[in-house]
């Protein structure tokens, strides 16, 4: 499994609950090294162990933690780069939803060996959509819940009024139901094409 996913879990736990809590979770999960590297590969079972340890330590349901990770990915200042990349998806939330099927391809453009689950968006009547997420065996369980968190945070980012939730999973796929009530409900956060943070040039 790609280290970016493992590293995301670590950064989420560190940034949200502090380095001490992360160290404790890493110890309970019996990790060889208490740091995941974004550019290395890990066994999915290792990451599943970390999540189990987090559930016990934080006394919080796994699905809720996963959804928080999705929100964290879009809203935490450390992830501004990722939020910007997601905003390239479209000019409003509906446009963004329509771009989701391209997401795995876009992710591969950035990191060639990053393999995200296939996504399929189905239009229903009255501003309703169903998003199908098809994880592969190599994916950790529950990416659909992360996606729910991402979508909620992106709806806020665009200033859209949206109702959405996880609608169950089977062995082959997870379903998310989305109803867009209003695309321009609130101001949302700004996104300027030319507003990328200056590239950091660090020595050694």
């Amino acid at each position, binding site marked *: 499994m790609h280290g*970016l996913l493992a590293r995301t879990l670590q950064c989420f736990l560190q940034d949200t609950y502090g380095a001490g809590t992360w160290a404790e979770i890493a110890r309970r999960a019996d990790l060889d090294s208490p740091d995941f*590297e*974004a*550019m*290395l590969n890990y066994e999915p079972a290792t990451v599943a162990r970390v999540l189990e340890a987090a559930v016990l330590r934080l006394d919080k349901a796994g699905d809720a933690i996963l959804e928080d990770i999705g929100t964290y990915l879009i809203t935490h200042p450390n992830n501004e*780069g*990722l939020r*910007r*990349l997601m905003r*390239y998806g479209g*000019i409003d939330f509906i446009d963004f939803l329509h771009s989701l099927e391209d997401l795995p391809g*876009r992710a591969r*453009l*950035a*990191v060639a060996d990053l393999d995200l689950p296939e996504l399929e968006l189905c239009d229903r009547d009255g501003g309703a959509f169903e998003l199908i997420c098809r994880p592969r065996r190599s994916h950790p369980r529950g990416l659909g819940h992360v996606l729910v968190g991402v979508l909620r945070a992106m709806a806020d980012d665009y200033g859209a009024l949206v109702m959405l939730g996880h609608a169950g999973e089977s062995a082959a796929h997870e379903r998310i139901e989305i109803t867009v009530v209003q695309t321009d409900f609130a101001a949302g956060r700004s996104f*300027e*094409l*030319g507003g*990328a943070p200056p*590239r*950091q040039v*660090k020595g*050694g």
Partner: protein
Amino acid sequence: MSLPPETMAALMPLHMAIGPDGQVVSLGPTLAKVLDPGEGEGASFAQLVEIYRPRAVSTVPELLSLAGRKLQLRLRGRAGLALKGLAMPDGHGGAVLNLSFGIGVVEAVRRHALTSSDFAATDLAIDMLYLVEAKSAAMESSRTLNRRLQGAMQAAEQRAFTDPLTGLGNRRALDHLLQRLIRGGERFAVLHLDLDHFKQVNDSRGHAAGDRVLQVVARTMLDLTRKNDLVARIGGDEFVILPLGLTDRDRLSDLARQLIARIEVPVPIESGTCQVSASIGISLHDPDCPSPDGVAGLLAQADAALYAAKREGRSRHAFA
């Protein structure tokens, strides 16, 4: 065929329609945005852009002689932006010149605060911006990993050259420096130091006391040498000192006497004190007359001198 202006504007937001006389008839909305205010329609196309490759042109017939070719041009005026262009006849004696930012798109977007609606939906410019940002993020991540690996490598090297008990260099650090000094053709001295009566301390007072003595002796040797000298522990109670740049026999003798005197100071331990002493053998490397066996020969000479000192009654030094 003549297309409505809004169709032209949507398909080619960076175009310029030019009449047969060279006057600009209409401008795409994005091009209008990047030109200086007040510039544009009514001016001659050559007043707005400077086409310089494949060759300079300023009239419509000259421009159309390059129809279908890739043009390189820059905006006149304050922007001075470099652009790529393609000109084709409009069917009425004039020309349509369509432009692109090429790889300067990142800079153009930043400078003119362009948005995705300033580009045609079929234009890859937005995808290119996406790619630039995504690649920077991925590269940054990669560089972070490299920096961490480099730090870990240095720490591992440091550990590989260090004796864990005393923090002094180890045999590997000694061999490494000796080889470098011999390669560098420098004259230098090797002090081989062995503790006297250490075995008794270990046997009668226990290993913890022995370890404590070794640590105190190590501290003493570091105190009496300079920062760049090497002090290495190469065996249980055997040490080698390379006092860099010090080759004078009298001064080496002074150093050896000082070392022995300080090492003989009793070391406090939990149950009283222990006392040891030291014998030292000194060999000198002369680049004009090197030992035939290199590093091993030099150490063997120092070792022989050490045993001579021990035979003469310990607590003293001898030269090879």
